[in-house]
């Protein structure tokens, strides 16, 4: 059974995400029973994996579910006319 996930732990995880190494301010952290659900998008697979690795390293008892996506970078197909 994982560690109790309370709002102090949630705040510590958010703080970890904004620390110098990860520097991701756009990741959402939701508490769902004893699981932390991570959301949002980052620019590379390496960054997503690093986020999960750092959280697991700092909070080994916490169960996480990672829904972080990689932002697509294809060229647009439409133009918006500004008026």
């Amino acid at each position: 059974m994982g560690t109790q996930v309370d709002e102090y732990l949630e705040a510590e995880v958010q703080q970890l995400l904004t620390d110098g190494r990860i520097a991701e301010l756009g990741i959402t952290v939701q508490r769902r029973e004893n699981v932390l659900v991570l959301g949002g998008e980052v620019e590379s697979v390496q960054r997503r994996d690093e986020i999960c690795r750092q959280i697991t390293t700092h909070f080994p008892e916490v169960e996480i579910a990672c829904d972080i996506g990689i932002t697509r970078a294809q060229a647009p197909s439409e133009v918006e006319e500004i008026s």
Partner: protein
Amino acid sequence: MIRIAAVGDVHVDRDVLGRFRPALEELPDRADALLVAGDLTRHGTVEEARCFATEFGGLAVPVVAVLGNHDHQSDQQARVSDVLTDSGITVLEGDATVLEIRGHRLGVAGVKGFGGGFAGACASNFGEREMKDFVGTTEVIAERLTAALLSVQVDALVALTHYAPVPETLIGEPLEIYPFLGCYQLGRAIDAAPTALALHGHAHHGSERGRTPGGVPVRNVAHPVIKQAYNVYQLLSSEVDLETLPA
């Protein structure tokens, strides 16, 4: 007609090299210029700035950028700007640039901007020195944006910021953090000039479209919001281009 490509919050580091480039190489067929609305890098280091210059430099269209809060993280923002400038990218902070495009003059005025919040829920220039410094910084930056916007005589004027000038493009973000995402003073600056379009980033969970109280279209071009390499906006649609006139 002028077509502007725009994106923000690309947070380039070595791991991003090559991701944007294929779409950027298509720019000459899609737009006349590329504007980048801050958070070019991840931690604001010189090495990351070089990565951004590699990915976004050397394009066949002019590139104009402002810095974002991430680009200040390592306190090397001046050196970051120098790296970008050396690679041919125009970096704005309280100034403007004019691009000549098919006989039209496109003006871009830019600042990073800062927080403070919006009408009814904003910080005041009052109390502790730290609070006065915070709001005072916002006010100074907004004044610089006003001056920059009014400094050019152009056919189409664009305001480029990192922080948001209106709350509408923040919808999707927690209300509690709006004061850290933008401020009404930027909107007032944009409305003080004949601005055709305002572009910003910073709010990854925000919304794409809004308008200032004065009616200027605002677009949040943060990469996680637009979910593609860049958006393209068309200005001066009814204007006749000089190069299309018969000789």
